[in-house]
């Protein structure tokens, strides 16, 4: 069984989710909050979803705008993130958002 390896960026993303575990989040919002660029963020999101630590859904926000993909921790993901938050430090990227401004 292939296991999920916890890179610094993965830990950063999980802890970010853990700050509001029940809230559905957008990819761009997560990117701004964690400072992770799309090329890093999406592979992590894919992996977390693959390991059933994230649940995803499409939501329609406004007319004429394509539906957006949103993400939220599953119970298992929340448990893992809670466990990690105790002992893991945030990586350096978490303090400098990659994309400034924008609509979340």
């Amino acid at each position, binding site marked *: *069984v*292939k*296991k*999920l*390896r*916890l890179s*610094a960026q993965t830990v950063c993303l999980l*802890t970010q989710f*853990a*700050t509001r575990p029940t809230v559905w989040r*957008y*990819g*761009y919002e997560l*990117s701004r909050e964690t400072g992770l*660029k*799309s*090329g*890093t963020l*999406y*592979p992590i*999101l*894919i992996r977390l979803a*693959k*390991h*059933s*630590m994230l649940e*995803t859904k499409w939501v329609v926000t406004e007319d004429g*705008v*394509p*539906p*957006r*993909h949103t993400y939220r921790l599953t119970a*298992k993901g929340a448990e*893992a993130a809670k*466990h*990690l*938050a*105790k002992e*893991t*430090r*945030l*990586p*350096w990227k*978490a*303090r400098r958002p*990659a*994309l*400034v*401004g*924008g*609509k*979340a």
Partner: protein
Amino acid sequence: MRQISYPRRLACLLLRFALKITPPDRTDWARAMLSELEHVEGNWQAMRSAFGGTVILAKHALLSAILPKGIRGPVPLGSESLLADKPLRKSTLAALVSCVVVALLFFLAPGFRQGFQVALVQWQNFIHVTGSDRDPDLDAIARRAENEKDAEALAFVAVRHRNTEESQRLSDEAVRLGPNLTWVYAVVAVHHPEVSEIDSWIQKLQPWDPQNALAHLIVAERIGIDQIERGDIPHRADEESVAWLDAMSGAFQSAKLDCYLDRLKELDRKVLVRYAIHDPYQVFESEAWSGLPSYAVWDSARYAEFLLQQGKVLESKGDRLGASEKYSTVTRFGDLLGPMARFLMRPRTIDAYRRLGEMSQRAGNEEQAVLYFRLAGQLENARRQDYPSLWEEYRRGVVPRWNASAVSVSGLVFLCSAAMGLICITVIFTKNRNLRLSTIRPGRLLSGFGLGSVLGLLFSCVTLYITYHPYAEIFRRYVQDGDESGIPELQVFLRTAQMPLGIRNLFRTDYYVFYFWLGLTVLGIRALIVMVVRQFVNHRRPGPSVAA
């Protein structure tokens, strides 16, 4: 209607293209990226976001083309699915340390140490940027020899020292202590034609070895150098000074031409054993050359041409005896030069033999004419073989050249692996800040580099030892028994190893092999630097509390 800028359009196009090549099980994610692009503020930020997403989707497309679906499929979930960096296991650490110890044990073998030294010779020109003419090893031998009044060791250093004044001083001291070493003056004068005491040395050399042409050739070279320094260069031999003509006449009248190479080899072997010198370059750097002054062959060819012209004039005047003497002088000296005469002197010698043959024919001495023509024919054949024999020499040197490249690359791999290993150790201890094995948790990247460096150390040591061993044996046999078999291969090997990697055998295959490994090494070093910088940045700036 909302106006969409060109960069944003381009970003959308990029992601739409990526969507087309995305494998079916990732299409949702590609759409997610595309829809998020609408919300990214700033055109260039959108471009960056699209580019990052495209790269990832392209990677997935590539993987889907290469790997079967089963391998990339969903992964079962379990509480054990979270994997933090594992602590270093004792068995792994023991294996790594064993490899390093085995690699270091090679240094106990003298042959390996010698090979390692040879592998690093190519970097000497980069390390000694000052271009100093001092050699600490030679200076140490000279100091010891002076203390012990060892004339042979002083001569050993004198013929090798790159500093003219020091070489001159040591030569005088060696000959003062051992008058039978007077020949050292000739060897040093060939190495350093600019020596100020050359006239007094020649006055000592000529009575010591009166039949040798070498002293005359040294004098002729000295005159030639003086003329070049003055800018007064004669184009023909008959325009030369009387002193030069006298010197060349003396050389052509001499009964032998001895460059004292045999005496030098004997002296080398004695000093190498007495002073436990294991550096092959100390021996073969000086013996690779013919022992003749650099102007000697050119001067000889010009003087031979001069004699041939004189012979023709005498022949036209009917002075057959005088002409025959001139031609015979040329042939005798041509024979003395032997293989060193090829290219420049040999055509003149052939010409002289033919003229002697023609003169004998005209005199009705058919037997002598046949002999002269046969000698001319032999030289002509040898001349035709000159270029093929050079090619043959080059071809025979292919194996030593490959071995030299293997040894040089092994030395480079050893240094890079050692540096990489040290960086890995530094990073691990900087990260963990203590030496407890259970707390050492190298990441996947660090483990890879660490393992690579250890394997690199071991592999380079084994390769270097196996490749250099035959040459170490040739050197040992030469020093201990005077066995010269294999010396030409050793010389080719040493000459090649001395050249920096990358400029050897231009346009040949190992040229590209070198750049492949260089590229790989540079990429490895770059990755290490990035890793180290990240580690330091992580440690210096503590992040905000997660729980907050």
